């Protein structure tokens, strides 16, 4: 369904001919995504291409584009830095607004600890600027190449620093939002030109913008947002080690990584609760034994070479990683005291990290996993991965999911589940996500990936394990229908919200919800 010439010309008049294209050589690139096999039959290419890709350069242009879409009844979807299939168009007749020209860090409020950004500001880019001011970003697991704005307003937001900085859905402050009608809303104090809160006056529109998951452009386009930052007690410009692709961070004396093992999940959980009760650590995290090898190496060959040299302790299945970053040496010493006591008290044992080969891996691991995660490395072994469980709930629920998942996966051809997750806001809630790796070029593996995802979805519901991450990340109508009866019938309300905000259903809501 090609875009009408009138509509194309109207869009071209807004952004200029150099900022619009319907050439398949361009549009195809926006449909090559990960997580495709879990939703569609194909290996990597989503089945739909944008009718055109438009590159607005300002909020005003976004608003004008959306109004043109209304006039010609063209559906649209916003795209910032993309990551998986839910970032691209979900059907025919949809144009994509690639927001790459809106890439400014508008402000970093050093005192009040937040940044105001446009959609194409990458997390690593903001992190580099924030560190100069003694601040740090909740860089999400998907990587430093992801959009700060998308993570805050539209979906996901899990990351290793969650216990000290929080989840990005909770770090969102003021937002500038172009509604599907073209109207521009600025939430909270942003309506008065200040960005320090996104809530109020009265009931908060932030509640409509973003929940556990987000609308993924299903109710318009976010053009600016403020996101809360954490304190960075490290150097303004950290000293790097090594060379690409294995750059590490030379840890200053007030930073220290600890990894400890426990005999079973129950004692690990006991330690997890106690550590978080004491409110220590920049990061309190659990990840599968493969994490160190995966994240601290640049190639699969490196993993194969490294594996025989690794001590058995680092490959232990019941492991926590605690990254301490003291604001002073006094604080570091206190946190070390607490951590050692908890580990001893709960029957844990530290993994020695001061001997090779681990000693050399620590700076790389801290850089690529703790501070600016590079989840892209997860694709390396199999070319693709799927994700399961991962609800935002108590650590008890997270661990229960891990126990169930480890049993379920045995009959599927993935060689196990790689768990990663931890605490948010000192254990207010947690997330423990089970990734499985597979060969996306193999039709049988793709079929198995879908089958396993479906089985886990049912297990999550049957075992009362919260809201499944797969439905949070890319919910389809079928999933909403399945979840509705056991989750307070939330889709009935969501459909009404969609209808109220987008009466002509112009914002592509394939991964949000269709209107009432």
């Amino acid at each position, binding site marked *: 369904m090609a875009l009408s010439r009138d509509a194309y010309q109207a869009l071209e008049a807004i952004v200029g001919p150099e900022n619009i294209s319907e050439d398949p050589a361009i549009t195809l690139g926006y449909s090559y995504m990960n997580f495709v096999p879990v939703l569609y039959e194909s290996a990597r290419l989503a089945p739909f291409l944008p009718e055109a890709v438009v590159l607005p350069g300002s909020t005003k242009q976004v608003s004008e584009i959306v109004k043109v879409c209304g006039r010609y009844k063209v559906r649209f979807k916003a795209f910032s830095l993309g990551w998986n299939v839910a970032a691209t168009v979900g059907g025919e007749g949809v144009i994509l607004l690639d927001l790459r020209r809106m890439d400014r860090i508008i402000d970093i409020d050093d005192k009040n600890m937040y940044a105001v950004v446009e959609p194409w500001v990458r997390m690593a880019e903001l992190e580099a600027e924030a560190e100069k001011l003694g601040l740090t970003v909740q860089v999400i697991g998907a990587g430093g190449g992801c959009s700060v704005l998308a993570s805050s307003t539209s979906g996901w937001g899990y990351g290793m620093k969650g216990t000290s900085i929080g989840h990005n859905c*909770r770090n969102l402050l003021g937002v500038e939002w172009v509604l599907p009608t073209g109207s521009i809303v600025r939430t909270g104090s942003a309506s008065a030109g200040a960005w320090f809160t996104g809530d109020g006056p009265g009931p908060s529109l932030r509640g409509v913008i973003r929940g556990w998951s987000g609308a993924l452009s299903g109710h318009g386009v976010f053009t600016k947002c403020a996101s809360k930052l954490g304190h960075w007690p490290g150097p303004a410009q950290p000293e790097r080690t090594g060379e690409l692709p294995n750059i590490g961070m030379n840890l200053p004396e007030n930073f220290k990584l600890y990894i400890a093992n426990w005999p079973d999940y129950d004692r690990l959980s006991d330690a997890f609760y106690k550590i978080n009760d004491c409110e220590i650590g920049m990061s309190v995290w659990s990840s599968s034994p493969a994490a160190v090898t995966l994240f601290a190496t640049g190639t699969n060959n490196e993993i194969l070479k490294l594996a025989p040299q690794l001590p058995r302790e680092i490959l232990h299945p019941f492991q926590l990683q605690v990254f301490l970053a003291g604001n002073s040496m006094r604080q570091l010493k206190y946190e070390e*005291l607490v951590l050692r006591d908890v580990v001893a008290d709960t029957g844990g044992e530290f993994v020695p990290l001061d001997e090779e080969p681990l000693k050399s891996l620590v700076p790389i691991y801290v850089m690529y996993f703790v501070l600016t995660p590079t989840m892209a490395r997860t694709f390396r072994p199999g070319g693709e991965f799927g994700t399961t469980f991962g609800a935002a709930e108590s650590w008890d629920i997270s661990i229960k999911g891990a126990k169930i998942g480890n049993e379920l996966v045995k009959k599927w051809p993935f060689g196990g589940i790689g768990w990663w997750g931890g605490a948010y806001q000192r254990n207010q809630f947690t997330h423990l996500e089970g990734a499985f790796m597979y060969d996306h070029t193999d039709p049988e593996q793709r079929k198995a990936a879908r089958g396993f995802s479906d089985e886990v979805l049912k297990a999550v519901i049957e075992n009362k394990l919260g809201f499944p991450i797969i439905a949070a990340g890319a919910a389809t109508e079928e999933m909403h229908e399945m979840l509705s009866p056991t989750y307070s019938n939330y889709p009935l309300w969501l459909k*009404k919200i969609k209808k109220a905000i987008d009466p002509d259903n112009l914002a592509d809501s394939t991964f949000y919800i269709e209107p009432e």
Partner: protein
Amino acid sequence: MAQEAKLRNIVGSPNILDDPESLEEYSKDMSFVEPRKPSYIAKPKSSDQVQKMVKLASEELIPLTPVSSPGGPRFHGDTIPYPGGVVVDLSGIDRVLRVDRHNKTVHIEPGVTFEQLRSELRKSGLKPFMPLMPRQTKSVLTSYLERNPILSPRHHWDTLDPLYTAEVIFGTGDAFRTGSAAGPGPTDELLAAGASLSAPMGPGPTDYVRLIQGAQGTMGIVTWAVCACCLLPTIQHPYFVTSAEMESLIEFMYALLRRRHGDELFLVNSFALANAIADKPEDIKSVAADLPPWIVFLNIAGYEKFPEERVAYQEEDASEFAKQYKCKLLHSVDGVSSSALLKRLEEPPKDVYWKLKFKGGCEDVFFLTTLNKVPEFVDYVYKTAVAYGYASTELGVYAQPIVQGTSCHLEFDLMYNPEDVREREKVKKLYLHLSEGLANLGAFYTRPYGVWSDIAYRRDAETTALLRKIKKIFDPNDILNPGRLCF
């Protein structure tokens, strides 16, 4: 059947009040909002009764005004009923349903007060997050729903805190559970499975509890909520921090906030502190006169593991910041002890509410800003007060950092004698002038009571239009607290 009979069928005749004294009592509060009498006061005893009432109201277009605190004085006009409507008094639904030490949460009903919650949590080694010396009858749930700031900015990660999840009866009469309380399945099964119901977001892509918080009961009536608690400290070292300059105190606070140091942390002027600490009204002015003009209260607490060590490192860090910003860390100032204030913060006095002690009446002007803007607002309010013949030395100021210091609740307390008609009129004029003038300076009325709703929504047409659409979804017949906010 007549409306009254239907209401009596739902909650039982003894729980419907329509005697003149009760109607009079619920018709007014301490604010400048004009009194209005309801037709009835209904006192449901369960979520089920609330739901039936809302369904009836929706069918028969009966305005409902929810009230949760088991007694006054009330202050902001938000519980003054719509003429001819029904006040839904939830104060009889007042159980602490569950204390979860493991996940540091508590499951409460609307009528639970801070005092009730404090003694219940203490048994499990926990304490509630307190606002600044709430009155004895204050509902915890209302306080959290109304974004009343808590004293510990470190624990206030987000505007919602300490509110996590809730059960709400929307204006349609539908019951809904928010966040991770939504499912899968009923609440008792979730809890039995090990859930904490502590993730506020969702279910799915909407944060429903954010639509309920700050809504003054216009979106739904909350029948229970799961809220955050704090570990009970094993040791506490409270301090007053003083300086010749307010700006220095603010820099000191920023240094602590950035590092998430300290527990209770806020800034007051001498008059607010004197009102909080003095036992007798006649002592307030003399206590205030002896105090430094601005005082930061800082409490550093230690918990279950290595409490002394925790307090020690934070004290040493705080001392360094104090030195850097030319502030003094003191255990008492001019005979007023920081420990005495801490005790009052934890267990507010049972006698007269602290803001009413001086003259019997108080009108607050409060809003959100950032800490570095506080001096500018203070300067404006002091000058304006003087211009209206109100002594700036009798004006309370309270600045509470929230959301870990990202923003700040700033409050000006105008104490007056409500029996003195001329004084009341003078304060009313000052209040109205300040409300508009502060907004012009950038004050953000996140809790827009009374005249502030007009000021806030008049300045933001797009938000107003969208909020009205959202309201239509959850309360299509406009029965929940009509006439509030922009509805």
